[in-house]
């Protein structure tokens, strides 16, 4: 019954034959396994455990020139805070030396006339930040401000300072209450892994076939162009799905990133993105037909932008208009938005539908494009 059905559908039979052949090739080729399985595993572990933008236990030097009880209260505030790892010195030079060696990220200097000024109603501490990592420095600056604010509030509560009207901020971080940076780094990792399998692996493998001339020999068989493309796409698509499964399982169970949307939405978005990445891989390899150039192009055109221009690390809205226009043609941008929303916010259809539509349009365009490029070389 099944054979009959296949017999009467020569197209289907040919595609299946190609898929079987291609799958065997993938399984026997250690390099495909390396990129398709080993690399995702390495990236998952590196990302999950290695990358973090959280700032905790900041080493600071406290230059305590005043040992009055008022000053010690401020010192205690720094010492008890989980954000700081305070080292106390009693003069400026040793602290500056620590800063030069970058063993501390900041110096907080409590001057010798601190208590006297507090009693007069206006005191200052000096804060020196190491600007070598500006992002970190700004966060540390915020922590120091917080510690000072807390001291002021305590003083007022103990009746030692006049209460004065002021605005205080109650911050709430939706979708990520604990402010864990791996909540957005792990979805970013999925984008990188999918890009890698979809675009880089496909570009390399197809370019190799062109280089060795094995693709031309396929062209003399009754197989049609779109059947070849389909036969190539399906095994790598499946490999991509394996990578995706690895990522989702580790995101959920290893790194405990919440999945607030539904699995079908996540799978749908990922399937669309893998198809786009495959399309780019096919297009690159069919146009350059050289492994080295194809892999470089795939790296430059997909992997680096997925890291730098997708909004996964750097905020897209703050880029200059010209750069922002470039990001609109990059599929990774839409996938990052989809993943961050589906993982952390839930199924927000107002975000999911437009982004998925863009990815679908890209699939259609890339499909037409790679078919045109492949057919042209037949003549």
């Amino acid at each position, binding site marked *: 019954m099944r054979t009959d059905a296949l017999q009467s559908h020569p197209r289907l039979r040919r595609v299946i034959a190609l898929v079987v052949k291609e799958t065997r090739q993938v399984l026997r080729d250690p390099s495909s396994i390396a*990129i398709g399985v*080993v*690399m995702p595993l*390495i990236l998952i572990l590196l990302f999950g*455990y*290695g*990358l*973090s933008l959280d*700032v905790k236990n900041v080493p600071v030097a406290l230059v305590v020139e005043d040992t009055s009880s008022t000053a010690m209260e401020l010192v205690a505030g720094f010492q008890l805070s989980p954000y700081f790892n305070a080292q106390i010195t009693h003069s400026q030079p040793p602290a500056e030396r620590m800063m030069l060696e970058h063993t501390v990220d900041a110096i907080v200097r409590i001057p010798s006339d601190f208590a006297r000024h507090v009693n007069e*109603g*206006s005191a200052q*501490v000096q*804060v*020196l*930040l*190491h*600007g*070598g990592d*500006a*992002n970190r*420095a700004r966060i540390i*600056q*915020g922590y*120091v*401000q917080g510690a000072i604010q807390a*001291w*002021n509030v305590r003083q007022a509560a103990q009746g030692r300072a006049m*209460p*004065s*009207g*002021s*605005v*205080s*901020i*109650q*911050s*709430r*971080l939706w*979708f*990520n*209450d604990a402010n864990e940076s791996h909540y*957005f780094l792990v979805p970013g990792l999925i984008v990188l892994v999918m890009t890698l399998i979809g675009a*880089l692996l496909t570009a*390399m493998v197809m370019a190799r076939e062109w280089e060795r001339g094995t693709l031309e020999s396929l062209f003399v068989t009754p197989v049609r162009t779109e059947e070849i493309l389909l036969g190539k796409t399906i095994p790598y698509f499946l490999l991509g799905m394996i990578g995706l499964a690895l990522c989702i399982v580790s995101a959920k169970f290893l790194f405990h990133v919440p999945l607030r949307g539904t699995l079908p939405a996540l799978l749908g978005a990922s399937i669309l993105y893998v198809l786009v990445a495959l399309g780019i891989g096919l297009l690159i390899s069919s146009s350059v037909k050289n*492994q080295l*150039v194809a892999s470089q192009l795939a*790296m*430059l055109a997909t992997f*680096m932008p997925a890291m*730098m*221009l997708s909004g*996964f*690390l750097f*905020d897209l809205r*703050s880029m200059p208009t*010209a*750069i922002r226009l470039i990001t609109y043609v990059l599929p990774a941008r839409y996938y990052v938005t989809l993943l*961050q929303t589906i993982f952390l916010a839930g199924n*927000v259809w107002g*975000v999911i539908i437009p982004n998925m539509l863009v990815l679908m349009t890209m699939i259609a365009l890339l499909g037409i494009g790679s078919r045109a490029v492949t057919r042209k070389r037949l003549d």
Partner: protein
Amino acid sequence: MLDTLLRILALTRKELLAVLKDRRARVSLFIPPIIQGLIFGYAATYDLNHVPYAVLDQDRTSASREFLAGLDGSGVFERVGNLHSAQDIRTYIDQRRALLVVQIEQNFERKLQLGQTADVQIIADGRNSNTAGTASSYITAVVSNFNEHWRKDHGLPAAVLTSTDRAWYNPNLDTRWNMIPGLIGQLAMFQTLLLTAMSVAREREQGTFDQLLVTPFRPFEIMAGKAMPSMLVGIVQATGVFLVAQLWFRIPFAGSIITLYSGLLVFLLAAIGIGLLLSAVASTMQQAMLYALLLIMPFSLLSGLTTPLNNMPRALQYLTAINPLRYAIDIARRVYLEGAGLHLLSHDLLPLALIAAVTLSAASWMFGHRMT
């Protein structure tokens, strides 16, 4: 001695010809680093300059308007909506129309006038918690500014304790200042390592490596002849990115160019050493390329360019000791921002020199001892 030099030069010339004879290859070596330097230079910053926000003002008094004027006038915050009920907050955040919603409570003005603390609630989209955190810290600055003015205008006593903040090396804490110098090493490494890894593998695949071995070339000379062209390419690429940083972004350069280039030279030697070693181990071009890519990715991710090294677990930090890019980025940043001289960079230069020495000698030993 002179013979050795002549032979190395001859091999270098031949290698350069092989790499540069193709116009497409020439373009692909020199244009991408410059374009990437430009694009990533703009993109790779954690600073924000367009933060869309919405307001739920439940007070609607002159004080709350003054507070909001402070936000609108900051040049960073752009108001995209005035909300009328708390239900609207969810729509604005969920649909990503606003990065934050500022909610001003009733009696905001009254509380301030009575000398009490008035609350402003900030609800931020935590899908990228780093961006949200940065935006919140901008709001904190606006708020303390407002507090100061309010107290002064209403004759209230100022806060007892304040601080004067100063940042060394980067007074405005512009993240571009430490991203762009880091890109010099990052962008130069990719193709240098790949090119070197392919160089011997290509000869091996085409069978010309055996021919090279029967010539009077000694393994060391082959190694040097293969390393030289990659070094030239690497230096040219690094210079391209350096020029982008200097002429386009005008990042202040506190150190000396000689120090920077000495550091880059040692870094490239280490990267080339790794490339040659890969090349010696691999038997086909494909393998060489694969090994190179497998190394380049962790090297770039664990370099400290985008996320700080000391945030990593201890074990991983030890692992980055063999990552040449980590040292190159540190060197570039410190020469650029701190004006560090060679003596202050020894903890970067020594490991790099060690990596270079080990990999280069291992590679030349393998050239002599591994026949396929």
